[in-house]
């Protein structure tokens, strides 16, 4: 069934378009109201906290969209190794090529803070949940529990994808090495 996009969503999407075009610093409540085709009064009914609340809602909205897209991109992966390797590469590339994110990181990175704080735990749980069926399907090293392994892998993937440190996540050979040693060596059974 078709759904009427709600006004809040419409304003948030317009807010994202404005930030992408003008940058976060130069995006005003008026710009967003105009782009969304709503009055200032409507705007403040949905976002009583004004600009700060609106920007935070936009960041959170895009943050969730980012992980949903990632989720879709990885759904076809077959094995645990494949999902980890592709996940790291796709996620890292998506972060590097996310023009709006990179612009915010250059100009006003502090606007990311509320979303990063609030979404940290749900994201970790989402990634862990996504990995769970792969772990369940796989033979694991004796003593390894699926939940604990999923949580550990989610933490590590989230750490490496945003800040690769000494790793080049565009290089499939390096990514395979990272996945084999740092991520899966305690989880996979010892190969004979």
């Amino acid at each position: 069934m078709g759904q009427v996009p709600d006004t809040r969503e419409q304003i948030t999407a317009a807010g994202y378009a404005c930030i992408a075009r003008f940058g976060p610093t130069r995006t005003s409540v008026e710009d967003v109201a105009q782009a969304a085709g709503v009055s200032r009064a409507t705007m403040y009914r949905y976002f009583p906290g004004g600009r700060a609340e609106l920007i935070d809602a936009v960041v959170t909205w895009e943050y969730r969209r980012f992980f949903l897209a990632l989720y879709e991109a990885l759904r076809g992966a077959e094995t645990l190794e494949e999902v980890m390797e592709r996940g790291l590469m796709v996620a890292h590339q998506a972060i590097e090529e996310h023009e709006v994110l990179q612009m915010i990181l250059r100009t006003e990175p502090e606007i990311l803070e509320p979303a990063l704080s609030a979404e940290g735990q749900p994201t970790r749980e989402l990634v862990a949940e996504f990995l769970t069926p792969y772990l369940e399907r796989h033979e694991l090293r004796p003593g390894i529990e699926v939940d604990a392994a999923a949580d550990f892998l989610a933490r590590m993937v989230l750490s490496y994808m945003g800040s690769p440190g000494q790793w080049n996540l565009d290089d499939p050979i390096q990514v395979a090495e990272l996945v084999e040693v740092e991520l899966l060596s305690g989880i996979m059974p010892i190969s004979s």
Partner: protein
Amino acid sequence: MRSLTPRQFSSYCLAVDSAVRSNAVVVPLRPVSAPEVTKRVAIVDGALACIAAKGLRLTTVDDVARASGMSRATLYRTIPGGREAIIQATVETEVARFFSALAVAMGAANTLEAALVDGITSSARWLSNSPALTTLLEVEPWVIMQHVSFGQMDRALALAVDFTGPFFGRWLEPAQAARAADWAVRIVTSYLSNPSDTIDLTDPIQVRDLLRQFVLPGVHALQERNRS
């Protein structure tokens, strides 16, 4: 990054320790007398008390002078450069204190496992026992979070890997020691910024079990590769 013999290593620990004691990290360009070092430490500790009480943004030079029991004039003479210089001296001193505590913990370890467990536990304890850090994470989280997000985290990683790598160098080749250090830093930042219901990083038994499950098999695989 280099690997250290036990002897080099103990002199390294002593050097870090004395650097912190004499406050060499925040030493000004001209020679300083002992009372002046004491004054600098008093100012830094005053600033930390202010940050613990109300965060960074609301902390003024007057607050720091009051908390350190000094006149504004003495404060400006001891650390020229005003509020910004005081904050920088405070950050540098705290970073040096953190690494010094970490050096002591890792230096006492006799096995690779102990170096990892003690390094992680000591870091987690030091960070969660810092009143200034606790307040900042509550009232101005971005001050801290910016350093563990995206590209800034890469810089923090490089610093931590440079410092802890040599300790792991007692058991691993330099490139592998850097990997182990990078890995350990990610564990500390992940569990501190995103606490777990089941794992307390300040508890050495829990850390040891976590590492035995998920980290040590990989570290040992790296060691094995060296031998073959």
